[in-house]
């Protein structure tokens, strides 16, 4: 459907290393999952694998940042957020350290490992922290843009990574500023705002809806905080209802963020597609999408519901 980009996180680090001599890369025994091997090989003096010490990893990253380093630290999304929340809150967010936390295999993309490894609430946790910028990149192009933006903007950030390979959906020039939500399809009947892996599903869903005469706008949103309020409010005003689509619990993630924006400035129906207050389990991507209601049919149903709500 879309061309794939190999190892987007690892490739981004290699690119940044050339322009940012202060870059340091940190792992916690998951370098293969994080695709950092090439970086480690090319820049061994700027790379530290700290072993299975996630809490310590956050502190070491903070100490490096306090010494002027630009630190990218990665492990599974569940471990770099919920496992070490106080360390991230105090050693990174409160101290405003220049640490970029990358969560690999977020939520249901960790299908093979099951519930303990599926970070259903990572974005909610990170979004609640002052000083923290939060990203769920919609594709490898967006992930690359996020990494470059963050490398040039000191301060804490959390980004979901993409393991092994990721699709290239966005036009790199249009996606250069990752804070901007991008309108990929025009439509007047409803807006689907999608983050992370849900963008591909949203695009597939609106293609289906177009066949039934429902014209749906699609917005690719990679930056949950600070969120692009202007684009969200414009879509709310112009299409009258919104569907959010996220690979994350509907408590505190994209759907909540969108609701917060429209609720205060342009109240319209917001129907949330996401995981409904549940831990996960093992399974294929297709199985998990169906079981946890984040598949294409769920977006279709949500759009129909939103359009109906709009009429009331």
């Amino acid at each position, binding site marked *: 459907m879309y061309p794939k980009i190999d190892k987007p996180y690892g490739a981004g680090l290699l690119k940044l290393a050339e322009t940012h001599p202060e870059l340091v890369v940190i792992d916690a025994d998951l370098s293969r999952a994080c695709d950092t091997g090439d970086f480690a090989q090319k820049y061994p003096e700027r790379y530290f694998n700290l072993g299975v010490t996630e*809490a310590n990893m956050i502190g*070491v990253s903070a*100490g490096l*940042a306090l*010494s002027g380093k630009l630190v990218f630290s990665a492990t599974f999304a569940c471990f770099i957020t919920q496992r070490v929340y106080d360390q991230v809150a105090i*050693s990174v967010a409160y101290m405003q350290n220049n640490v970029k936390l990358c969560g690999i295999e977020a939520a249901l993309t960790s299908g093979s490992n099951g519930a303990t490894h599926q970070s259903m609430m990572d974005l909610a946790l990170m979004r609640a922290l002052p000083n923290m910028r939060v990203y769920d990149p919609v594709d490898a192009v967006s992930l690359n843009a996020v990494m470059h933006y963050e490398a040039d903007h000191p301060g804490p950030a959390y980004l979901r990574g993409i393991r092994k390979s990721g699709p290239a959906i966005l036009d790199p020039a249009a996606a250069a500023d990752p804070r901007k939500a991008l309108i990929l399809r025009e439509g007047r009947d409803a807006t689907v705002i999608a983050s992370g892996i849900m963008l591909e599903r949203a695009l597939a869903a609106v293609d289906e809806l177009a066949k039934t005469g429902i014209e749906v706008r699609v917005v690719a949103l990679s930056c949950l905080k600070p969120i692009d309020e202007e684009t969200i409010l414009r879509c709310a005003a112009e299409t009258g209802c919104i569907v959010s689509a996220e690979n994350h619990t509907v408590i505190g993630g994209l759907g909540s963020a969108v609701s917060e924006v429209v609720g205060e400035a342009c109240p319209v129906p917001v129907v949330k597609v996401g995981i409904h207050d549940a831990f996960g389990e093992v399974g294929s991507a297709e199985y998990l999408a169906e079981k946890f209601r984040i598949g294409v049919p769920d977006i279709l149903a949500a759009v129909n519901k939103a359009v109906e709500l709009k009429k009331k």
Partner: protein
Amino acid sequence: MTNNDWSQDEILDLKKKCLEVRRNILDLTFYGSSSHLGGSLSSVEILTCLLFRIMSINPDLPQWGKRDRLVISKGHAAPGMYAVMAARGFFPAEELKTFGKSGTRLQKHLDMHKLPGIDASSGSLGQGLSIAAGMALADRMDGKERFTYVLMGDGEMQEGQIWEAALTAAQHKLDKIIAFVDDNQMQVDGFTKDILNVEPLVQKWESFGWHVQRIDGSDVEQILKAAALAKSVQGKPHVIIADTIKGKGFDFMELQVEWHSRGLTEDEYRSAVNQLAAAEAVLTAQTGKGA
């Protein structure tokens, strides 16, 4: 002021500084806000030796790029740190009276963004040694020869992250880290040995690959000697287990659990000031009689 030789008069001066710092702590808590007195008083000698003698710092340039750094991992020793910083000239002693009050720079736990001279914010225990390890790694990458000092508590040894950081510092042979454990034997709820025993600390740290010393942490000369020895030993990070006394300096506070965080009444404040004056008189009588 980083040489390793000192005269007895210098030791006497440091002891007098410690009394001044204790007076600052009394004022800070009496005029400011109730504080963690016990664990601040036990760390007075360590912090005074660090800021006045051991560390290379400049109070006029708190962000000086070549300064030695200090991570107060036991962030509730903030009153002790403020008291030493004021004595060292980082800010006027008068400001100590704002401690813990609305709008103050002197938060109950250290905030690096409010008060210049604090190298890392702290207050949630267990995080400082990891931060120091990151600092030391960065210094090595940058070819900086400076030292990173850490102050931890014995209760803090119960935090698992400390031991993750201990592994990391040993793995990377971070011999520019000199950590102090202010071992006052007590934590919030009582004696450490009764709640969750952390001993034997010397064997624990040695087995983690550290260069370990155990000293009387109320003896400034032993503190100076231990720091000097630590600087001379290469290839391992250093920990100095400093046996101290919680509430040190005031007879009604020493080793009393209630003084972890309670405030002073007016009578207690006056009694404490009198005890400091008596100690000062003893030191003054010794002046000039040193070797």
